[in-house]
């Protein structure tokens, strides 16, 4: 079982959205970041999949459009279902 390292997750999002890591927090979402558009989102999903060795189901891939949601979905995939 792999623990989710939040600072690493923040860094990935920050690099892909081309913003400083300080700009990524619990409130960050597609609505708060201008650079987080549908293309950047696709790129993010692919990058998270290869970095964490997971595969997101279609619905999650489309809907996890905020830092909070990504954390939850990733956490579940990495930790397994309770």
């Amino acid at each position: 079982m792999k623990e989710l390292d939040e600072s690493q997750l923040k860094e990935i999002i920050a690099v892909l959205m081309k913003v400083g890591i300080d700009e990524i927090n619990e409130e960050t979402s597609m609505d708060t970041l201008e650079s987080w558009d549908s293309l950047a989102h696709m790129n993010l999903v692919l990058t998270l999949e290869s970095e964490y060795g997971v595969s997101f189901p279609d619905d999650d891939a489309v809907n996890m459009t905020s830092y909070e949601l990504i954390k939850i979905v990733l956490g579940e995939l990495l930790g397994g279902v309770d």
Partner: protein
Amino acid sequence: MKNLETSVNDSALVSRARAVLESPESSKFQITKSVQTLEQLGSGRRLSVGVCSNIVTDALGVFLKKYGFISGVNIDVVFGNYDDISGDMETFAEQDLDYAVMMPFFDNLLPSFETQCLLMSADSLDAKKEEFRQLCRLALQKVHVFKQAFIVNCHQSSVYSQILGQECVAAIVGQFNQIIHEETSNHRNVTVIDAGAIVSEHGRKACIDERFYYLNKAPYTDIFLDTLASAITTATKGYESYFKKVLVVDCDNTIWGGIVGEDLVSGIKLNPFDYPGNVFWKIQHDIMYLQNNGVLVCLASKNNLADVDETLSSHPNMFLKDSALISKKVNWIDKVENIKALSDELNLGLDSFIFLDDSDFECDSVRQQLPMVETFQVPKDISKYPELMNQIMKRFGVAEGNDGRQTEKYRRRAQAMELEKNFSTKEDYLKSLDINVRVFSDSVPDIERISELSQKTNQFNLTGHRYSVSDIENRMSGNDFIVYSIDVSDRFGSSGITGILIVKVSNQIFHIENFCMSCRILGRGIENAVWTAVLEDAREYGATTITGEYVASNKNSQVSMLYAELGFTQIEGSDKYKRRYEVAVKDFSQPSSEWITYERIG
């Protein structure tokens, strides 16, 4: 002192970032990060590459930049609009970009084309092929302005067509690729990249991501795009960061097996059938192929000239012809001296030389004494020799499967066809499409689609105003709004509702609340057709003025001048990000798109 420190730190950062890019182990994230670092430091000479496609290929950018930085080049990647290859190519030419990449994705030439094409009538398929030919022709019209341009050819991508309808789909894909070959053969700076070869190298599953194809029209995986970017870099010789022109080859155990001085002509290993003669026989074909593509081939061999000449002229399986060799240094002099002599003779710098030999001693001495010559050693396992030859061919920037004579054949055929039929202008081409635009007002059955378009459209969206289904319902049922929806079809079928324009009517003013068009139909003048309906209604309602607004977002700059181009005047007091425009109904003349037939419905 401070500056010195910064530059020392910078150069450490640059070399660390480049090491990440060069390592095959690096993850996509590491690559992205390193590319960003190098971009921020402004490392390398600057070049621009335009990419246009009928699918979403933005992820190619990072890989083009990756191989660019490896070659010491900082590439600015410019993406075209969605599905407007000929328009994009025109824009790229105007923008003076250095390179252009065209990527027509077969399965999206029409929706699910691989499945559709099997069920289409022969006439429709022929019409589609003809349209594709015109598309290629238009896209290539100004291609000569680029240093080099690439067209990634068609290939099968869907699982069904590969297993079930393989023969048929493959045949149709082949016909489209034939068109690409014919249309590109007149353009010397255009290279066809065989996408099918990339897919078969890695496998369809590794190259095509169905999820993002269906979700975002972005079918290619990182593996495919990485290989493609690498192929483009190869074909540009690392964006002209190196130039190889001369191939110097040894004879014994390099272009044939064995030693001719000992084994005699009859004893050397060279034939199409048996190992290891079959490997050397293939290698000779590769060398001739390079020679056909302009590489200067020379011999440098420690042998008796008479033995080598006899082999060249009398061995029955000798494919490499004496006449194809630009110079022969067959003697007992040191190879370093021979290579230097060749450089003088050909008046070409040593850094344009590649040297190929089987001997440790010869390779080492050339590497030591002439480090600018690129030296390759024949592998001890001869079965690995073709792979090495492939590397050498890449260094010459020669793409496999682009045979010189074939090109000539295509060129003649293309010229013959040129006389037959050619659309000289984009307008002629557009006329041939039989575009029909239908404009509906307050079309209740389309409410959901209208709302969806307003939500999804970013580029051609004047104000960014988004509408829910009930917003649209309310506007349609009231008297003070008109909701126009635009349906487009051409001889290949219907694109459905692809544009909306919403007008608020009050006090003799027709105010355009928003105007959106799907980007997949831009570049055909369709956006002009809606004004006929708006103008008709404005007159009927007795409106005197039409007003509109442009609200800048980070994606809609392409329509920032739309109202100005239509002849509206900007109202004073509006700022750069929110501009208001007006035009008097009596003064407004709608732009014409003569190639479009127009129908008013409802």
